[in-house]
Each structure stands twice: as C-alpha cells, then as structure tokens.
C-alpha cells in the first residue's frame, strides 16, 4: 500500500494513528517535529504526509511551505491535522499549501477517505 509520513509530536496521537494506519496496510514513517518532517520527506519521498500543525522547532505551516516550495517534494499531498477549529484555520492550512485539512480528534473513517482521495488523485495524475 502507500508510504505515509506522519509528522506529529504528541506520542499518544502518533502511536494511535500509526497503528491504525498500519492495520489498514500502509507503511508508516514517523517524524516528531517539523524539521525532521521536512528532512524525512526529502529523503524518503513518501506518497502522502499527515502533518500536525502545532509542532516544535518548525511548525506545520512552515514545514508545509518548505515542502511545497521544493521541486522534489512539492507534489507530495499533505493533509493538515489540527486540534484548532477556530475560524480561518482551514484557510490558513490551505494557504500554506496543504492539500486537505482535518480536525483532531481524528474521525478515522473520514481521514481514510481523504487519504484515499488524495492517493487516488496521485495515481491518476
């Protein structure tokens, strides 16, 4: 299945999400801050990135802008995950270059359909 990079600093969320995605047959790579996320995206070129937005060192918005600004990584779809649900969050994520957006707590089936949609689009493109 797909190679998914999960960038998330909260250990529990990371553990939970990676286990559930692995059960669905995906290969999961883990980064625990934005900087590591960018480095790993460059070296591993995953099929998709799940990006928490409030991250240490480099936040999700900055990391996304960097990834979308580099030719090697700009086509990797990024789904922003944020616990914020204030007005404008969605816009800010999309403005940063994220391809989709979901709020935490993650509703797993909804997230899966978003992942599927983006991966499908990649294959078709």
């Amino acid at each position, binding site marked *: 299945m797909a190679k998914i990079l999960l960038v998330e600093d909260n250990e*529990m969320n990371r553990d939970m999400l990676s*286990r559930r995605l692995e059960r669905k047959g995906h290969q999961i790579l883990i980064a625990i801050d934005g900087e590591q996320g960018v480095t790993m995206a460059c070296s591993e070129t995953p099929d998709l990135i799940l990006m928490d937005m409030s991250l240490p060192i480099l936040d999700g918005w900055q990391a996304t802008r960097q990834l979308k*600004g580099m*030719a090697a990584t700009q086509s990797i779809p990024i789904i922003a995950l944020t*616990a914020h*649900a204030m*007005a404008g969050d969605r816009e800010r994520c999309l403005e940063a270059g994220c391809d989709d957006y979901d709020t*935490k707590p993650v509703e*797993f089936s909804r997230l899966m359909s978003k992942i599927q949609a983006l991966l499908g689009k990649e294959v078709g493109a």
Partner: protein
Amino acid sequence: MNSVPHVLVVDDEEHTRIYFSRQLREYNLNVTTVENGRQAIHWLRSQPFDLVLLDILMPGMNGFQVLELMKTDPALSHIPVVIVSGLDDLDSLVRCIELGAEDYLFKPLNPILLKARINACLERKRLRDQEQAYLKQLQAEKAAAESANRAKSIFLANISHELRTPLNAIIGYSEILQEDIDAIGSEFAPDLDKIRASGKHLLALINDLLDISKIEAGKMDLYLEHFDVLSLVEEVAKTAQPWIEKNGNTLIIESTNALGSMHADLSKVRQALLNLLSNAAKFTEKGRVTLAVERKQEESGIESRESGAGSRELETTTLLTANNQPLKTASTQNSELKTQNSYPPTPFLIFRISDTGIGIPANQQEAIFEVFSQGDDSSTRKHGGTGLGLALSQRVCQMMGGYISVESELGKGSTFTIALPVDVVDHQVTTALAAEPPELHLQTEIANPSNEGGLILVIDDDRTVRDLMVRVLNQEGFRVVTTWCGEEGRRLARELRPCLILLDMMMSSVDSWAILSALKADPTLAEIPVVMSAIANNQSTGFTLGVSDCLTKPADFKRLALLLRRYRDNLASEKVLLVQEDATTRQIIQRLLEKEGWTVAIADHIQLALEMVDQAQPDLVVLDLMPPGMRGLEFIARLRQHKQLYSTPVVVVTSKDISRDDQLWLNGYIGTLFQQEGYSREKFLVEVRKLVTTCARSKTSA
C-alpha cells in the same frame, strides 16, 4: 472646569499688558503676562493655560511664529488663541485665522466686547475639553472591551485545543481496542463502547459550545456555496435513517416541487437538518418522522399557521409580509430578520420536520431554543443529547438570514420548520462584499461566448470594480469569472484554468499578497500569470503592477530557471535586467541566468534600475521585492508607464513569509504609490487592457 481659568497675555507693550491684567482679574480670571514670543512658549510648555491673548507684532519671535509653534505642537494645539491687533492690519489677521487662531480683538479694546469674547472662548474650550475627555474615555473603554474580546477568543481557541488533545487519545484508543475486540469477541465490548460513546458525546459538546461562543463573538464564518437541495435531502435522510429506525420509526420524505439549488453554507444547513431529525427520532417511538421540503418563490408564501408557539411564528411572518409594520419585540432573531428584510424579496426554502412523538408543552416552546435547555430535566436524563443542538441550529439559521420555528401539541407530535433564503447573503462581510448571486457567473460567461480571448479570473472585493472589469474585458473578447475572495479564487482557478488572473492588490479584508503566494505556491496554478492591480475607492484613479510571475522563495532557483526558459521561448533576444539589492543573491541569480544563456544587466538599487531601463532595453526583468525595502514596486509602477517597455514581463522574487508588519507596511506603501503613480480611470483601463491582452495572448500562444 472647577479651577479658575488661566489666561496668558503675550504683548510687548507694557500698558497693554497692564490693561489686560486689570480687566481679566476683574472677570475673576488668573492672568500671566509675558512680553515676547519666546517667553510665551516657555510658559505654555511649563504649565497649563486655558486661553492665550496674542499680539502679532513683537520683536524677536512674533505672533505668527508663536501661533504656528502652538498649533503644530500636539500638547499646545488645543489652547485657544485670541489675536489682538490694530484695525489696519487685516491681512495679518486673516493669516492668523488660517493658522488656527480662534478669535480676534481690535485695539483700542472695548471692555464689554473683551469680556464677552473671552468668556465665549473659554466656554467653547471647556466644552471641547469635555468632549475630548469623553472621547478618550470611550476609546479606552472600547480598547478594553476589544482586548477582553480578544482574550476570550484566544482562550476559546486554547481551551478547545487543550480539551481535544486528550479526547483524541480517549476516542482513538477505544476505537483501536474496539477493532481488536470485534476480532476476538469479548465481554468488555459494551463497557468499551460506553467509553467511546462518552468521548464522542464530550467532543460533540465541546464542538457545540465552541460554535455557540463563536457565533456570539461574531467569529463564525459562513462558507457559502451552491449546492443541489435534493442531493442534500437524500444525503441527510441516509445519515438519519439508523437513528430513526432505532425507536421503531419510519422516515418519510416529501418534496413538493422542483427544489433546484441553493446558495448557503452547506455544512451548517446539513447540521441543522440532522439536529432536527435526530431530535424527532429521539422523542418519537413507533411513529413517523416526516421531512417535507418545498421552495417558496415569494417570501409572503411563508404563511402563518395555527401554532401553539404562536408569538414566534406569527411575528416572524408579520415581519416577512409587511415591511412597515412595527416590531413588537426585539429579540435577536427578529432583528436579524429585519436586516434580511431590507434586501429585495428572495425565494425561501422551507424544510419541515414533523414527528408523531411526545410533543412539547406550550410553555416550553420558547425555552427549547435557549442554550442548555431540553423540555425539562427529566427528559434530558431520559433522552440524552447536549442540550445545545437546537440553540445552535437556530443561531446558524439566523446567520443565514432564516429561522427555525416550532409548533407542537402535547402527546401528538411536533413540527419544526427551517426557513432559509435560497440565496444567502453573508452579513458578516460588509454588503459590498456580498456573495455573488448565482446568475452573475452565468451572465458574465454568456455575455461573451466567444472563446477566442480565453478566460480571465478577476479577484476583487469591490463589486463595482468587478462589474467594471467584466465589461472592459468582455469588450476585449475575454470571458470573465469574478470572485471577491481569495480562497474561492483559488478553487475557481483550479477548476476553470483561466489564462490570466487579475488580482486586486488593495483588498480591505483580505490579504492580496497571501493570495498571490498561495496561487504561486500551487504547482498546478503557478504557471498562470497574475496581474496585480488597484483602483481607488472612488474609482477615479488606479494603477497596475503587471507582476507576471512571482517566486515566493528566494532559494527556489530551479523554478526560476524553468520560468525563464518559458519566457525565452516568446522573446526576440535574451536580455534580462536583474534588480537585486542583496549581493549574494544577486551573484547566485546572475550566475544562474548566465548559465542559461541570458545577457544579464545588473542594478543593485531601484534608482539605478530606473536609469538603466532605457539603455538596457531588457526583454525581462527579475526584481527583488524583499523586505524591508520593497521599493521594487515603485520600479514596476514606473515601468508600466514606459512608452515601449510597459509590457516587459517582470518576475518578482519575494520572501517566502512576508510578515504581518511587512504586510501592513506594504499596503501603506501601495497607498503612497497610488498617490504618486496612480493615473486616471481611463488610463487605468487602457493599461489593464494592454497588460491583460499581452500576458494572456502570449500565454495562449506559448
């Protein structure tokens, strides 16, 4: 003012000073006399005065100079000045009044006139001071209220984050365990399900609370879009089906006529419908739940019906049918409707959710729309729910210019009615930014069906400017699609692939530069040329910056190379002017350009660049627009006015993150540029035509 007013007399003649002194003391005023301007300024700066009597002709610093100094000093400008002059010196007097003198007295002085004028002056000053004090107080209060409101918003954002993070783990892990247990089967399953369900319930509660607070703080945004009503109804019915069946109920859908599409916030309409359906299912057993939908062409079509909740329903109807009828009560609901009512009548969509359930007692029918209120406490215990759903749905409908009403009979059932305008206007945004009526896009498309010129997307928050652009660009043979918002602009750009985007760079509520960066950061849109333009509020002047391309990341040289190659295909020669202040970046770009075979002319500042343009005759300009200078804009504005070089493509290199401060500064700077470089509306339109035609045509030919 409770203290005795203090008057400063400035005159070089001793007998005048003595005269004033004596007279003013007689009127019970405090008097200080000085004999020249310098002394006057010294005294004024050392203690407060309420009035200055000023002679014009004095040795050293004269009256004009004193007056000028006073009126330009914010600490002194509020003190009224009465000029004392000879009758023969009218010119000087006029000059003093122009400089800000409050009144004048002629020599020889008349004691009665003197008293009247001085008292009038002092009274005016007292009133002005009072007004200022009130204003200051109001401003302070306003600032305090705003900062409290901000603190509340930040608190809300934080608390929601803090609460959701642990919930994330609770729900997530119980779902993981549930998957495990489903596989092996276990007696723990029901307990686990309760943990998960409680977690979900808590989440729903937090979400609803957050939504209600957002609405009340005016922070809830509407995401208006066009959607098909029947599809929504079908989708909602499918979602609600399991809840309805749970209590042995049947769901009946009634659609009376062609429903068509509506322009509203889809997720909020869906939320309200699901809420009412879930309530109906919850409070009905072995009965029927009916969802009936119809489209009313006239607002008067919403007829008053016999209803236990009469007042609410009837009043709403009154409002909708008779504009001039005075309101009996002024609840928020009705004032909202009144706002809506000031717009021309629009068709409404009516959703009726009826059940055959327990019904609501008449005395509780008002209260159910309030926060944390169900029929009564016992029903909360029996039926669960957050107690926020109905309150939230009501507010959400009101935001969209509609309402929810109820009629119910105890033991027989309830009918909830949602009425929403077919075309919702976003009241959060000022009327000028009002969402486009659905026909406009179509009209503009049909207005010029010729495909020749291609499609242009106009992003501008001013409706009149959008209309103007449609006309102008249609005349040039382009089809035009307009929008006022950047987000929608991006969506349209992706969908319609216009050959050019015309972006307003002075939008009041939105950040044009963020839109530009977003467009350019999107690999699927980066190729589309964007022309930045601005037109003044009164639309009499405007100017354009034909920013043909924009690199948002200085290090992204690979894209620069690609971009330049694309341009070179359309150019006769290969001369590029590089305008870059930073030496390192300049060298890198220069080397890169030369490697690509370009002849590079270098300017390390804007002035030089402006001088070089004529002699270098570049085919392309690569321009630094990095903070803090960003004077590059001025260069572009000048270039656009150049006789031969106006259409030279400019590739702008800007910082990946223009900060908020830079942004504000930049907007201010554009304002200044506007004054310096702006030109008449006619010329502006000519410029836009030229630029658009050049850019769009070269794009189509490329």
